[in-house]
C-alpha cells in the first residue's frame, strides 16, 4: 500500500520532469546551421529560430550611430570541428573563409551595443531569424576570437 503510493509519487515526478524538459526544449530549441545550409534552405527556414556561426568580414561592418544598428556580412565556415582541426584550427578556418570570395555569405542585422570582439575574422555566433528579404536579424550576437589568448610563441623562438 505505502510502497505503491511512493511508486506513483515517483512516477508523477518523473513525468513532470520529462514534460518540463520536452516542452522547454520544444519552446526554445534553436537550429544550428552553417551559412551554406541557410542559403540553400532559405524558403523552409524563414522565420524559424536559428543559431548561425560564421566568420565576420571586417570590411563590411557598418554602423549607424543614431539607431545603434549594425550590419555586417559573415562568410561560411564548416560546422565540422574535425575538418577545422585538420586544416589548421579555427583561426585558420576563419581566415580562409574571409579571404575566399566564392564562399557563401549572409548579411546580418543587429541592434544593440557592439560587442568588444566584433572585428575581421572573428567567429560570430548569432541567434535570430532569417527574414523574407534574405537578411538575418540577430537577437543575440556572440563573438569569439580564437587567436586572442593563444597566440603562437614569439617569432624569435621559431628560428
Amino acid at each position, binding site marked *: 500500500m*505505502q510502497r505503491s*503510493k*511512493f511508486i506513483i*509519487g*515517483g512516477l508523477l*515526478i518523473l513525468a*513532470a*520532469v520529462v514534460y*518540463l*524538459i520536452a*516542452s*522547454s*526544449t520544444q*519552446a*526554445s*530549441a*534553436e*537550429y*544550428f*546551421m552553417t551559412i551554406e545550409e541557410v542559403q540553400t534552405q532559405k524558403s523552409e527556414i524563414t522565420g524559424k529560430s536559428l*543559431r548561425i556561426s560564421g566568420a565576420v568580414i571586417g570590411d563590411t561592418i557598418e*554602423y549607424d*550611430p*543614431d539607431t*545603434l544598428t549594425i550590419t555586417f556580412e559573415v562568410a561560411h565556415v564548416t*560546422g565540422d570541428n574535425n575538418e577545422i582541426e585538420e586544416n589548421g*584550427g579555427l583561426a585558420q578556418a576563419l581566415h580562409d573563409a574571409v579571404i575566399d570570395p566564392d564562399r557563401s555569405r549572409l548579411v546580418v542585422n543587429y541592434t*544593440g*551595443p*557592439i560587442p*568588444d570582439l566584433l572585428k575581421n575574422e572573428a567567429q560570430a555566433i548569432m*541567434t535570430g531569424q532569417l527574414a523574407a528579404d534574405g537578411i538575418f536579424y540577430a537577437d*543575440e550576437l556572440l563573438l*569569439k576570437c*580564437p587567436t*586572442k*589568448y*593563444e*597566440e603562437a*610563441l*614569439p617569432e*624569435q*623562438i621559431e*628560428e
Partner: protein
Amino acid sequence: MLPNLGYGVLLLTFLVTLYSVVIAIVGHSKKSAAMIESARRAMLLTWPLLTISSAILIYLLVNEHYEVEYVWSVTNSTMPLYLKVTAWWGGQPGSLLFWGWLLSSFTSAVAIRKWDRDRDLLPWVLVVAGITLAFFLSLNVFFENPFKLIPGVAPLDGRGLNPLLRHPGMIIHPPAQYLGFVSFTIPFAFALSALITGRTDDRWIRLTRRWTLWAWLFLSLGLVLGMRWAYDVLGWGGYWGWDPVEIAALMPWLTGTAFLHSVMIQEKRGMLKHWNMILIILTYDLVLFGTFLTRSGVLSSVHAFAESEIGPMFFVFIGFTFITSIALVIYRWADLKSETEMKSMLSREALFLLNNLLFLSILVVSFWGVIFPLLSELFTGSKVTVGPPFYERATGPLWGGLMLLMGVAPLSAWGHSTIKTLGRAIWKPALVALLAPIFAFANGITNWIPLSGFTLVALVITVTINEFGRGALARSRKSDENFFVELWNLTKRNRRRYGGYIIHISMVLMGIGILGIELFQTETQRHISIGDTIELAGYTLHYDDLAQFPHEDGRYITRAEMTLVKDGEVIDQLTPRFDIYPGGQPMTIPGVRSTLVDDVYVILVNWEGISANSTPFKVYHNPLVKWVWIGGYVFILGILIAAWPEEEN
C-alpha cells in the same frame, strides 16, 4: 637550473604518490602495519614536495623568468605583484599544479591523524586520494609541464594574463572554486574505502561530515564569487548566462547539495545508503568533468585554456573512476540495504527524498541542455541547441519546488507526519507569508510567477524564524535566561540544524534577487553627446564628461562621467569605462549604483568611433539584484555555524 629543479621535484612527487598507492594496497593485502605506515608517510611527504615545486613556480612568476614558457604566457612586466602570484592558477599547467597541491594538502590533513579507531579505512583512503593525485600530477609531468623552457633566446617580456582575468577577483574566485572541487575528493575517498572494506555503516559519513560541509562552502562560494565577478567586470548586465562552464560548476553543486541532505537520513534512519553512495560518486565525477570541460579545449570562454592533449586523459580517468565506483556499489548492494522503511509521504525523510529528486531533476535538465545538441545531431542530423530560456523554463518550477520544501520540511516529523499535523504547524507562518504577495500586488506586480515566488520566499523566512523563535522561547521559559541568550544556546546545541536553517534563509534571499533580475530587468541603449541625458525606470543619467588617457601599465582607458538623478535630486556619480589592453583586448567595466531596491548599471559600449559628441551607452535597471550578494553573506554565516569544529569535551 631552477625550472629543472621545479620539474625534478614534481617528478619525484609523482613517484612518491605512486609508491604510496602501491604500498598501501600491498600493505593491506599482507596486513602489514609497517607498509601502511610507510604509505601514510609517503603521502605526507607529497605536501612539502609540492609546496617546494609550487614555491619555485611562484618565484619564477614573480621574478619574470620569461625563459619559462608558462611564465611567459601568463605574466608580463606591467602586471602587479598579486597578479603575478595568482598567475599560478592563471593558465593550464599552473592550475593543474595548484589542483595537485590542494589535493595533497587535504590528503595530508587526513593522513596526519593516526586513525586509531578507523585504521581499516585509512589505506583505501590513501589509495583513492593517491590515485586522483597521481592522475593530476601525471598531467603535469607528461603533458603540461609548468617548468617547460622556451627554446633559444628568452623573450624580453611575457604575453601577460588574459586581461579579463586581471582583477582582484582572481585572488579569490578560482581558489574557492578549486577548493570546493578538490575537497569533495575526501568524502569520495572515504565512501569508496567503506565500499572496499565492507564497513558500510554510516561511519564514513560521520567522519567526513565536516569535510563535506567545507567542500560545499567553497563550491558555493566559488559560484557566487564567479557571479559577482561577471556582474562587476564582464559588462553584460547579468551574472549567470547558463554557459556550459557555469553549468559544469553547478552540476557537482547540485549533487553535493542533495548529498548533504540525504546523508542526514542515513544517519538518523539508516535509509538511502545506495543513494548516498551514488550521489558522492556522481559529485566526484562531475567535479572531474567540470575540470575536464575547462581544460580540454572543448569550449572557448573566459574559463577555457589552450587546446590541449589532456582531454582524452580526463575522459578515460572519469570513465575509469565512475565504472569502478559503480561496480563497487553493485558488489556491496546487499550490505547497503535500508534498516527501516519509509512509511509516510509527508514524513521528514520522504520530504528529504523529494528534495533529492528535485536536485537531481535540475541536474538532469542541465545535463540534457549540454548534451541535447550532440544527441540531436546524432539522431536527426540537424544541430539544435538550447539557450538560457530553456534552462529558465525547465528549472524554474523545480527551484520553486525546492523553496516550497524549505518552507514545509522543517515542520514535518521524522517517521510519520500527516496533512493534519503539518497543517497545524504551518498555518500561522503561511498566513504571515501571504503579506508578501499582497504587498507586491499593491506595488503593481500582477504576474502570478513573481507573486508565487515572493510568497514562497516569505514562507521560508517565516517558517524558519518561527522555528528559531519557538525553540528559544521554550528554552527561555524553562531557564531564567532571556530570549536572545537562549536563541544563541539553541543554535549552539544543534549547529547543523540551525546553521542549515540560516542557509535556507540565505538561499531565498538570493531567490529574491534572482526573481528581481530575471523577471523585472529593463534596459535601454542610446547614443548621446556630452550634456545629453538617458532615462530609464524613473532615473535620469546626465552625461557630463568623457576622458581618454593611457594608463601606465599600457592600457588605454576611456571613461565617461555621469550624474545619476532621481526625482530631481542628484544621488550618485557613475563612471562606466572601457580599457583597451595592448594587443587590442578590450574590457568593459560598468558604472553601478546599487541599493537594496535596485541597481542602475551603465556600460560604455565599445566602438571605434567613440567621441564626446556621440557616445553609445547601454543602461540596465536591475531590481533587487543586491539580494543575491546579501544572500551570499548570510550563506557564509550559516555554513560557518554549521561547519565550525565542535569544542572538544
